[in-house]
């Protein structure tokens, strides 16, 4: 019996033709096995994210500035994807901004029992940043959230602040007029590079 090269012919081992000792003929066969793994690490965030997390403790939001294009990225990663350069300057952006896009989640997530559906996840761009990040938007009916909505950060109480992005509980509407997005700010337009 050589290697089976005809893809239409199922190999014998996969077709259930495996023979077992007679003593096992009548027992319920094992068909799956649980092999859970939990691997523990100590995470270190790196220079840029460390500065960002430390500023969070003071209710400040820091971004990375691209040394070539001047674009500001939040949260900072220490590199500008537009120029590929290591960023060297961090700037503070506002804790108010606008919703660039959003979705409404209507199913619960096992790992976040604190989130009660329906809730809104939005791409929030803080004033002063060119690229924002995903955040929760609350204090408004999900159906009323819209692109361009002005929002401000709702921070944890001062005595609960730590080096964590979770210091911002969510963003809520400011009541200001919506931002008009007449031009999609697409990163990567010709001319952005290098």
């Amino acid at each position, binding site marked *: *019996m*050589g*290697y*089976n090269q005809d893809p239409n012919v199922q*190999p*014998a*081992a*996969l077709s*259930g*033709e*495996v*023979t*077992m*000792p007679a*003593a*096992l003929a009548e*027992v*319920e*066969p*094992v*068909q*799956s*096995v*649980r*092999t*859970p*793994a*939990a*691997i*523990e*690490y*100590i*995470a*270190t*965030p790196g220079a840029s994210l*460390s500065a960002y*997390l*430390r500023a969070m403790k003071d209710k400040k939001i820091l971004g990375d500035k691209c040394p070539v294009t001047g674009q500001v990225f939040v949260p900072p990663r220490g590199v500008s994807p537009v120029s590929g350069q290591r960023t060297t300057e961090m700037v503070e952006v506002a804790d108010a901004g606008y919703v660039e896009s959003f979705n409404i989640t209507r199913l619960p997530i096992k790992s976040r029992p604190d989130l009660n559906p329906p809730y809104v996840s939005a791409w929030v761009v803080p004033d002063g940043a060119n690229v924002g990040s995903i955040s929760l938007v609350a204090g408004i009916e999900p159906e009323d959230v819209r692109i361009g909505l002005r929002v401000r950060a709702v921070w944890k109480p001062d005595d609960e602040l*730590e*080096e*964590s992005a979770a210091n911002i509980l969510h963003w809520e509407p400011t009541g200001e007029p919506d931002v008009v997005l007449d031009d999609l700010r697409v990163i990567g337009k010709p001319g952005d590079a290098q």
Partner: protein
Amino acid sequence: MVESTSDGVLRAPLTLEYPFTRTTGPVVGGFLTGLREGMVLGAKRADGTVLCPPLEYDPISSDPLTELVEVGQSGTVTTWTWNGEPRAQQPFDQPFAWAMITLDGADTPMLHGVFVDGPEAMSTGMRVSLQWKEEREGHIADIAGFVPEEAS
């Protein structure tokens, strides 16, 4: 949760969990069924030798292996090392030796733990016997481990 340690570096514990449940197919499933029922199975190759634990395909000829046969529950250590301190995830609660063990009636060795007092009690070629867990579910750790044959 986040810690700024003496060297000024932020550190946070991170646990990645994978709740894997794997389907077995008839060969691996057959072996695990055997374990649950207190039997060890190997796969018979075309030349009559037996691979234990069994594989779906012969690693040399690629032939499908479809005949599972019972092998013995004692065997011979072909190599070993000493695991002084059981590591976090290991299903062993005491110091033990890792050993490759060729069970009687099998022609290839399998990896498992051997319980002895210390590395001086281990040697290549020593005879060991399998010890079952009382509650078995069809898992490689249904084998609690091995002990020297005379102690079993």
